């Protein structure tokens, strides 16, 4: 092709991907279907179904992730909307201010939240957990929605106005539907990390509330690799289902999430 025979240059990375991405994922599946004694079995999944504790934690985590996502959407959408209406240079600066905290280690951010609650003499617990989650993940909701609102064709909005829609109708029937792609990436980018974190909950509730991530980590740490792998596989499946439900969101979410 254009640059000579450099296609071979992809070989080291392909091998790397196989060894460090595909094989490890296959190992999760392998461990999940192996009993502690060795040999193929469904024992780990049976254990999950028999023990209500892990199941309850999973359901509770999904609940926390849902509430966090809804709060982020309710708080973040107006912010993204206001930002998208501002003159560009000012909006860019403000958007950067919103994204900046995202680049600080989330443990430091979480500890800062603990500090804030201590400072205001507020108790740690469920309320602190939700505040901490929203605080940590709000920028992930604002950014994709802002981006999509910015790209929205102004003519469509004007057309709606010209055709006699009142401001409320313009918003609910034109602007909001046009921003769905941004909303779906935002939901993915908030819901997915919330459901898999563990340290945030530990620090903000003084270890009183466990999320599914904590259960995963504890099992692996206590040497229950097979059970831990089975739980990881369940989480992978859950996340796979959510991504499938949201076909367009995931790839874009990844692109917009990592880069500035």
């Amino acid at each position, binding site marked *: *092709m254009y*640059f000579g*025979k*450099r*296609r071979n*240059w*992809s070989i*080291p*990375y392909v091998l*790397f991907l*196989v060894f*460090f*991405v*595909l*094989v*490890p*994922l296959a*190992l*999760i599946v392998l461990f999940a279907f192996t009993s502690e004694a060795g040999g193929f079995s469904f024992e780990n999944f049976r254990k999950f179904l028999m023990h209500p504790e892990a199941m309850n934690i999973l359901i509770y985590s999904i609940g926390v992730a849902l509430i966090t996502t809804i709060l982020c959407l309710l*708080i973040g959408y107006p*912010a993204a909307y*206001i930002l998208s209406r501002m003159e560009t240079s000012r909006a860019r600066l*403000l958007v*950067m*201010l*919103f994204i*900046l*905290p995202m*680049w*600080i*280690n*989330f*443990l*430091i*951010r979480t*500890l*800062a939240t*603990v*500090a*804030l609650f201590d*400072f205001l003499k507020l108790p740690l617990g469920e309320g602190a957990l939700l505040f901490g989650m929203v*605080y940590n993940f*709000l*920028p992930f909701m604002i950014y994709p929605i802002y981006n999509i609102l910015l790209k929205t064709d102004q003519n469509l909005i004007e057309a709606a106005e010209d055709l006699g829609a009142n401001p409320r109708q313009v918003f609910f029937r034109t602007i909001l539907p046009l921003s769905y792609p941004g909303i779906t990436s935002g939901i993915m980018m908030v819901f997915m990390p919330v*459901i*898999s*974190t563990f*340290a945030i909950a530990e*620090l903000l509730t003084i*270890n009183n509330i466990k999320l599914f991530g904590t259960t*995963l980590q504890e099992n*692996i740490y206590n040497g229950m690799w097979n059970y831990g*792998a089975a739980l990881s596989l369940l*989480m*992978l499946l859950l996340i796979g289902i959510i*991504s499938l439900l949201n076909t367009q969101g995931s790839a874009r979410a*990844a692109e917009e999430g*990592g*880069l*500035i």
Partner: protein
Amino acid sequence: MRRILSSSYLGILLVMLYAPILIIIVFSFTEAKVLGNWTGFSLKLYTSLFEGGVHHSLTSALWNTLIIGLSAAVVSTLLGTMAAIGIFNLSSRQQKAVQLVNSIPILNPDIITAISLFLLFVSLGISQGYTTVILAHVTFCTPYVVLSVLPRLRRMNPSLYEAALDLGATPFLALRKVMLPELKPGMISGFILAFTLSIDDFVVTLFTIGNEGLETISTYIYADARKGGLTPELRPLSAIIFITVLVLLILINQRTAKKTNMKTI
């Protein structure tokens, strides 16, 4: 009226986002052991952070973080750039396949990446330490380097490279003099991104660092916070990290701003 309402909404959100960080920065300038007690202005926490001695473990955690971050960033920039050049020359079907696998570490929640790599290392009986952490970080950093170098390749004018060959340059010389300067901006953003991702990482590090006492800033903070007492020196450290990230971000932003300006010209 509307303007005031909307600006104050953004203002309140920003205050909420920054209040915790500001509290940490403000209280890094006082000596009190417990956060929230103001015992007068002092730089003692800053000096004792760098003197080592008492807080030797924190300083070594800081060094480990930087060494791991730099190694991971260097390795993933080299590997990712080479991979991007290779991928660019593959057939479009192969490109799609490699890019699909390339996106797995980006899409996977970090705890899944962490557990899968943990299982890999224990299955192979590799003892965990520096090498495993760096390998793990390279795993989740390289995809981002590939993604930031590939667009540069796509945008490059292929005739330039061919012209160099026609004028008698060896493929290596053409690579060095024509291709690399074009790829450099992508490589630099990839490097910075890899470095920030690495120093920011906690979950993957925790699972691949082993239990030989090796610590990074993240694992140190985690262990410290679980013990209940937060080392006061973490306050100045967080303040320094915040300022560093701020400066890095402004630098990256200027780079991209320059790039967009050039595009409009």
